[in-house]
């Protein structure tokens, strides 16, 4: 959008791929609003003057708005509103559908900070570091109350709810620092629950991956996961420690639960006949609320891991499953039931 429109509407700079489209619709809708309100008001003022009372207690002939006028007004307005809805809903669906191949960052909110976990095993507080021109998928949860991850410059916002893992995505269009704000009231320090997205150029991002020199002052780091290596290898330990392998295999054998080999990104057929792509949203929901989506051919026996698995452990498990998404399963024995197909859907590539 033109800079003067951003200035006129007092909007922050546009720093994501979908911001310009949203601002364009914003401008059209707000212009319609202003003109609509002014036009109706001026029409009323004109008739106020035109039909002012000439002598006291005068009577007026009965007259009604004709049905034709009424239908034209309603039809015109309804078409306008529905046009807003069609464009708005299309943009909204686009904003809610992370593109294939997006890099993943795990976000955990708590009073009153943001914690980011990267697949490499790195973690940071309040500063999210991402490369420019790469779609970034956020897998977000909260440890206490509801928060909302809001980056005004990206025109992006997603509530972060305890017990649920929501995904959101963005693709930054230019390097820089963009404020993160918590938009859902979360207690006494709500207004201080901020942070920033640090968008780096490809070269700078490569250097950031190697060290810490691009970390903004004030960013805090946690070494616990990083010391164990990347998230995927941490995930194998988590799975062993939490007993996941009692039911799930990593060699392609179907067991009490489906195998994890080739699971991520594949299309899973559920007991009710519908199918779903095994992405981060599906996998996290299966851990937190296992009875919600039962895979066809398996019994609903998995217990919930809500309150058992920590957010970093969930992130590690998902990354571990991703790391074995491309492994071709080699069943040791032939079973009457066909083992799940290797992943045929889109793959999340590791950064």
């Amino acid at each position: 959008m033109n800079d003067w429109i951003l200035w006129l509407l007092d909007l922050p700079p546009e720093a994501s791929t979908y911001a310009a489209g949203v601002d364009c619709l914003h401008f059209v809708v707000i212009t319609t609003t202003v003109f609509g309100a002014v036009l109706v008001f001026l029409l009323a003022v004109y008739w106020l003057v035109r039909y002012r009372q000439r002598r006291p207690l005068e009577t007026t002939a009965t007259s009604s708005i004709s049905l034709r006028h009424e239908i034209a007004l309603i039809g015109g307005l309804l078409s306008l509103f529905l046009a807003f809805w069609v464009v708005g809903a299309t943009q909204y669906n686009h904003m809610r559908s992370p593109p294939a191949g997006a890099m993943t960052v795990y976000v955990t909110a708590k009073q009153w900070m943001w914690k980011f976990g990267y697949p490499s095993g790195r973690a940071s507080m309040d500063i999210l570091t991402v490369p420019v021109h790469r779609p970034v998928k956020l897998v977000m949860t909260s440890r206490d109350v509801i928060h909302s991850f809001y980056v005004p410059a990206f025109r992006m916002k997603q509530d972060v709810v305890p017990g649920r893992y929501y995904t959101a995505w963005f693709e930054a269009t230019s390097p820089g620092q963009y404020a993160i704000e918590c938009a859902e009231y979360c207690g006494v320090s709500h207004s201080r629950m901020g942070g920033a997205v640090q968008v780096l150029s490809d070269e700078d991002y490569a250097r950031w991956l190697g060290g810490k020199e691009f970390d903004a002052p004030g960013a805090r780091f946690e070494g616990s996961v990083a010391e164990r290596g990347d998230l995927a290898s941490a995930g194998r330990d988590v799975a062993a420690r939490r007993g996941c392998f009692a039911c799930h295999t990593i060699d392609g054998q179907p067991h009490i639960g489906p195998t994890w080999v080739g699971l991520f990104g594949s299309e899973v057929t559920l007991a009710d006949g519908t199918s779903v792509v095994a992405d981060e949203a599906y996998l996290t929901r299966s851990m937190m609320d296992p009875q919600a989506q039962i895979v066809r051919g398996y019994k609903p026996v998995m217990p919930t891991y809500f309150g058992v698995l920590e957010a970093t452990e969930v992130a590690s498990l998902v990354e571990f499953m991703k790391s074995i998404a491309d492994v071709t399963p080699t069943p040791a024995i032939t079973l009457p039931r066909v083992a799940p197909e290797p992943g045929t859907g889109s793959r999340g590539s590791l950064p």
Partner: protein
Amino acid sequence: MTTIDASALFPGRATGDDPAQEPAAAAPGQAGPSYLTDGTTVWSWIATTDHKRIGVMYFVTTVFALAMGGAFALLLRAEHLTPTRTIVDAYTYNRLFTMHGIVMVWLFMIPSIPAAFGNFLLPMMLGAKDVAFPRLNLLSYYIYLVGSIWVLVALWMGGCDTGWTFYTPYSAHSPSAVVPTVFGIFIVGWSTILTGMNFIVTTHTMRARGLGWFRMPLFVWAMYGTSIIQVLATPVLAISLAIVGVDHALDWGLFDPARGGDPVLYQHLFWFYSHPAVYIMILPAMGVISEVVPTFCHHNISSYKAIAYSTLGIAFVGFGTWGHHMFVAGISAFDAGAFGVLSMLVAIFSAIKVFTWVFTMRAGSIVLRTPLVYFFAFLFLFVFGGMTGVAVATQSLDVHWHDTYFVVAHFHFIMVGGTLTAWLAAIHYWFPKVTGKMYSERWATLGAVLVFGGFFLTFFPQFLLGNAGMPRRYYDYDPVYQPLHVASTIGAFILGAAMLLVCIVLVVAIFTGERASANPWDSRSYEWYAPSPPPKHNFDREPAFGRGPYDYAEPFAGAAEFEASPEAKAGTS
């Protein structure tokens, strides 16, 4: 048990009424004492079952609530003069905006027009002597009073800091007085339900003979639509808040995800009530406007059925739009789309009303008096605020605006720019009927202009703050937002001063105003056939129900023509 009193229908009709209870209905102009002077003891007021006195008691109580909510608002605005601490700390700030919302929504806005003006006017507009259940009506008032006092007790205990929305899990663990606050609202909810039920029964059973559904004043339609929402939606609020209270007090964890609860379910329940609740607040305002416009334009409403049916449309379609508060709360894309398109539909009903009001002005005989000045303020603010409602219901735009000052500005344009200006229009419009006095037109108009100016300066900058990305409920803010915040604060204090001026003008008028005639605005609506102020049983002459309340093709059929027989009237006109 209260039964519907047939004699409460218009007196003088063959309803087997007890002559001893009749007011002096014999000759026009010789009514009994007005409802204000018929019994002057304190007991005669606090134990009254007269709908007009109950309406006045509601009115006075809601004005106190408005003053309290307004004082909180001014404190909030003063706090935002600087980006960090100005006068209060963060915890106090959080409790202030919560109590501002609670007091304004449940203690002022919801009863403001329905319970005060609805009580006073609904029976008169139906040609009835009272509502269907007068004693229940009095009970409703006292339930409201007890609930309000309970909220004050909660305030005295430190107040609540969850926001008026009480989102879980925060509300389950908030250190503030959540339980007494939700209990106070729970009590007030009963009053709302009972009043709604009373009005529905009154409208169905108490209409005077000859007064069909499509001859009722449109304010009655608005009350009827409002009452439907009150009866259907308020129980859901009561249940939701009761669960919040239990969660907080006993730690049952009914919305706690760790124990199988779902915090998003709470939001569904809350908005299932609270979105229709905004129609509880705006429908009565629309009813007021539907009375004010024909009266001061001296022209029939340009489409009676458009207003009546759109009222029902809002009342019912309004129940299917709550999800537009949750576009980023984690509902599915399909749900978001469905709620989005239904929200567009409900906006159409409001637009129908706006066009009908404006077209009513065409070929009228328009007199610009204070209530019509408020209509003009309402018209601009409501259309602007309503269109920004369409804007925030546009899903992709809402993602940026949700929980920012844009939303705050939007709903204040509707709630204050719409409902408050309509409430002020109602006060000025029916002031002669209620008090029997006239106010100073000049000062009242000045008050109206200042209210509009102060309001606009308060809330217009907040749209820009929202665009810029300032979230709501922020105690500290980025200093770049300061100029807009200062402008908003200045506007708020102008608005506060304007409200004070309006109050003074009206109080002075009560004591020194000229006596009002029965129909000072030359209206055709039925309540103006009664003396000003009306006697206890409302009418000493029968309103012209056969003519309809918006028939401006003939002179007013009150006073002089009253005694003329229908045949004689037909001959002369």
